[in-house]
């Protein structure tokens, strides 16, 4: 089996969102100075999902694919240290400012070029924009089924079995491979690379493909080819009022809270 895991590098998601600024005129997010880029949280869980499948079927090949500047090698290397076999960096100035459709186009074209890919794994969403469209977009363009937001993943005789996280529970869905799966945090903590695995990273190959390697050019990747227009980027103003419940005992405070919620027709 050949699995491709799509990984993305994002500004450190541990720092508070309020430290980011918005340049409304340029429609751009301005991260605070000195912020470092790290692997997107769910993508590392996606790598973990691939490694769990590889634990079951050791002859599985796992390719780690990332689109971005040279610096995303950090995330590729981390994923290789977790047990990925090969890296694929999609790097081109044409890839710098894409909308979600163009992103899916680049990634799906690369998957086609890789040939004989059975399964594509993505994180449920990237933790910078939280859009959650890459997995479905890739599946759409490849014409493959997309099984999203998985908390467990299995492959039985060419059938992908994914337990999905719903608002009110779980459901198990199946699809024939080739398919795309997106993975949620409920799968569990990603493994950490051990020193011996880190030592092996140097020996693993990272291939770099440009837009030309994928047969793509400005006509597909330029501003005119975007399908999404960003109308306005701004921080919504949300007024938060905080009220402490009065009461002499915890019971009385709870009763007051219940009354208040009932008055507001919330319960």
């Amino acid at each position: 089996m050949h699995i491709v895991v799509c990984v993305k590098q994002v500004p450190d998601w541990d720092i508070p969102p309020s430290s980011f600024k918005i340049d409304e005129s340029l429609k751009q997010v301005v991260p605070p100075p000195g912020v470092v880029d790290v692997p997107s949280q769910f993508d590392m869980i996606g790598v973990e999902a691939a490694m769990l499948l590889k634990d079951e079927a050791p002859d599985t090949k796992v390719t780690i694919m990332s689109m971005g500047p040279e610096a995303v090698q950090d995330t590729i290397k981390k994923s290789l240290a977790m047990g990925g076999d090969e890296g694929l960096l999609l790097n081109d100035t044409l890839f710098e400012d894409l909308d979600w459709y163009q992103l899916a186009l680049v990634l799906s074209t690369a998957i086609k070029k890789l040939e004989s890919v059975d399964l594509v794994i993505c994180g449920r969403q990237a933790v910078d924009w939280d859009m959650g469209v890459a997995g479905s977009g890739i599946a759409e363009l490849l014409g493959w089924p997309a099984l999203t937001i998985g908390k467990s993943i299995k492959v039985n005789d060419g059938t992908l079995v994914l337990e999905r996280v719903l608002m009110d529970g779980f459901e198990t869905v199946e699809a024939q491979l080739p398919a795309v799966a997106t993975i949620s945090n409920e799968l569990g903590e990603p493994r950490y690379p051990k020193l011996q695995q880190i030592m092996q990273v140097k020996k693993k190959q990272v291939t770099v493909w440009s837009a030309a390697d994928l047969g793509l050019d400005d006509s597909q990747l330029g501003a005119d080819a975007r399908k999404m227009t960003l109308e306005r980027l701004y921080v919504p103003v949300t007024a938060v009022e905080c009220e402490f419940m009065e009461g002499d005992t915890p019971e009385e405070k709870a009763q007051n809270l219940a009354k208040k919620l009932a008055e507001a027709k919330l319960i």
Partner: protein
Amino acid sequence: MSLDFTLSDEHKLVQTSVGQMLDKFESRKAEFRQMAKDGKGFPEELWQEYAQAGLTGALIPEEYGGNNMGLLALMLGFETVCTRGFSPGLLLTICMDTCCIVKNGNDEQKERFLPKIADGSIKFCFAITEPNAGTNALQIETHARRDGDNYIINGQKTFISGADVADYMLLVVRTTTAKELKERGQPKAYGMSLFIVDTKSKGMEKTPISIPLSDELNQFQLFFDDMEVPAENLLGTENEGAVAMFNSLNPERILAAAICTGMAQSALTKAVDYAKERKVFKDTPIGAYQSIAHPLAEVKIDLDAARLMTQRAAWAYDTGVDPQTVGSYANMAKFLAAELAIKAVDHAIETHGGLGFAEETGLINQWSGARLFRTAPVSREMILNYVSEWNLGLPKSY
């Protein structure tokens, strides 16, 4: 063009991976500390995780089950463990013992011990100090006498960390006594020998010494009364153990320095976080007062310096720079880092006011841990002696 202050991607990965490894134990630090206090020894679960991560195998060649990533990688791992407020436990002595076995052991010994050290199934402590021989290690009196296929060992050791949890100990003894040396006109460094000793050997008695430190290791006084050790456990050549041992002291100093920079970072982070939040007068956080801020800024400057010195020493060791130069780098790094750790914890306590003394803040017990490193494994005075003599060419006074 070759001076480059950035860590390699692999070395950065060691930092993040060790941090990730510790995440799952974050909520259990107090429990681990209590275990040590209750005499239950170092938490085995945490030790196994250190081994799984590859920390015990970082200085062991791949053919013996290690990953051989080197001292710089290991040093960064140590620093991360201490930055996160965990104890490296026996890692310090085990890494030093490992170097000694890798450099001086025969094939049979390497095959017997190294793979098990790497996979975490055995632990080692190190025993050299005696009541009359600490700084002056050549003065040890514990003696081993050959008797057929065994050596018979008599004497005592003191301050031996982790003798309760270790399966084996690297024991430094004399096979030629001081008196014999004098009679034969041999140099003082001659006549020392190294043995790998099973800590459950008959004839060894362990008495705990009460030292209230936070490193989750207990110290012991050991008495050897006709303890038999198989001759095959002699490490290196009989009587030539001094050189073998001194060669392993550089890694120990470098790792001790890394423990100190980690402790300093941990204390500094606590202090800065608290100084941003705590308000004593009006609405001003105490971090706005220069009497609180400036000492912390100084700690940050010293921390960067100590870290660079420590990395330089580890890099020099890994790249095969001559031991004399590595020795200078290692000693200087250890000196700076140990002084820094004390200063960092002290300022963190001061920043916390009365809370600095509360056990839950974790600073007051860290203080004794930091303070230890001024004195051991090599004292501040002996480092200054070393630098005076070897780096400045001043006459030796002792």
